[in-house]
């Protein structure tokens, strides 16, 4: 008997289970492929432009961001994200997609109140937590180094 009190529990069978294994597999393959492309770009910058591995990092990330922004504009990245889930969201390309998609979405409200106000509305939390956790981790590392 489904009642108001047991509703959330008793309707679970109707909601179906998310295909976790399938989703993980798709995320692994697509996320992995994005990283392979990144690695390829790093080698490209190292062997064609004579960058060191460390120097090649920045242009690699920039190129991935450019590719992701273009794919977002062409309406491809949302399909990739809906297929691959975390595989497309976690790499830097997902971060770029969240900014580009918000910017595109709010183009209709103008450059100031539309694009620039809203472009970080999804990425903002990543930036906040990224910065805060980097600070905390840095502080812990510094403290431990001083103690040792």
């Amino acid at each position, binding site marked *: 008997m*489904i009642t108001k009190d047991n509703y959330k529990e008793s309707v679970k069978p109707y909601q*179906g289970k*998310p295909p976790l294994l399938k989703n993980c597999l798709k995320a692994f393959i697509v996320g992995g492929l994005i990283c392979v492309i990144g690695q390829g770009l790093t080698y490209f910058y190292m062997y064609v432009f004579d960058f060191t591995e460390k120097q090649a990092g920045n242009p690699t990330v920039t190129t991935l961001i450019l590719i992701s922004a273009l794919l977002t504009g062409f309406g491809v990245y949302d399909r990739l994200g809906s*297929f691959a889930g*975390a595989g497309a969201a976690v790499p830097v390309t997902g971060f770029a997609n*969240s900014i580009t998609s918000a910017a595109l979405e709010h183009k209709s409200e103008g450059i100031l109140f539309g694009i620039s106000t809203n472009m970080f509305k999804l990425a903002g939390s990543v930036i906040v937590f990224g910065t805060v956790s980097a600070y905390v981790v840095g502080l812990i590392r510094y403290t431990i180094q001083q103690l040792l």
Partner: protein
Amino acid sequence: MKQGKNSWKFTNGVYIDGNATVTGPKEAKGPLADTFDYSFDDLYCNEKTWEKAEQALLKKSIGLTLSKTNTRQDAVDLFISGDLLNQTISSSYVARDMDIPFFGVFGACSTSMETVAISSSFVDAGHCSKVVAGTSSHYSTAERQFRYPTEYGIQKPNTAHCTVTGAGSVLVQKEKAAIQVEGATIGKVIDYGVTDPLDMGSAMAPAAANTIVQHFKDFGRQPDDYDIILTGDLASVGTPILKKLTEQSGYDIEDVHQDCGLMIYHDSQKVNAGGSGCASSAVVTYGYIMQQMMDHKLDKVLVVATGALLSPTIVQQKESIPCIAHGVVIKRVKD
């Protein structure tokens, strides 16, 4: 006239004419494509913004309702319309270009039957002789207001819905026409504690069940008194829950129930649980269902449009989702 506890019976003759439907491109690839009056082949509907696109859908639909019935704007006493957007801007901005007194209403995806019920009661009471009732929804305006930017790559769960891009309108009138509005059951706000905005089928099913059971009680009817009991957008998750809930109350609707959210798209169109939005019930009812009635294939239908009355802000504040469902009985006028 009041009927039972929460219902009205329209005893003075209220009729529907000029049923019109307009959709976007995705709906035009669905199984009901042939039943729509017009489908835009571009999600922007030849406009510059999503919001204007939604207005274009509604405007086109109302234009069709008026032209189909050869009705001039000044012959219409009232325009009642609603949509999903903040301050119901789609309806108000369309009303701006019309020379007709206007009521804007909000009932989320239950707006289609909410507007028909209100229009019918005004006509039945003699306050108006012609009322245009309309509603619209657009995939991209809904995504942007309730969820994420349209180009944001996110994996939605199987319980999520796809907002129908479209608009529907009818002329509710005193003058006799092929379809009669017999009565309406007005829903109560029901909240069974569902908090997931990506699972509106589970959230809305109890509201639909409440209205349907109340309707049977108020009118002293049984499910088989109807050819179809049509819900708006419960889709694949809410539909079996609704059947179970009504069965528990002693009404088995298994054989007569259909859901617009499951009818409007093919399974292959990747819509997860199914369609939703104000246009889901509007374009299916004003299109397919009314055409079937005019072709003498259906006689009597109970349309129960279901709506989730949430906003992104209140859901983020961890509130659960209150829902509503309004039922309207439409029947074919025997020649």
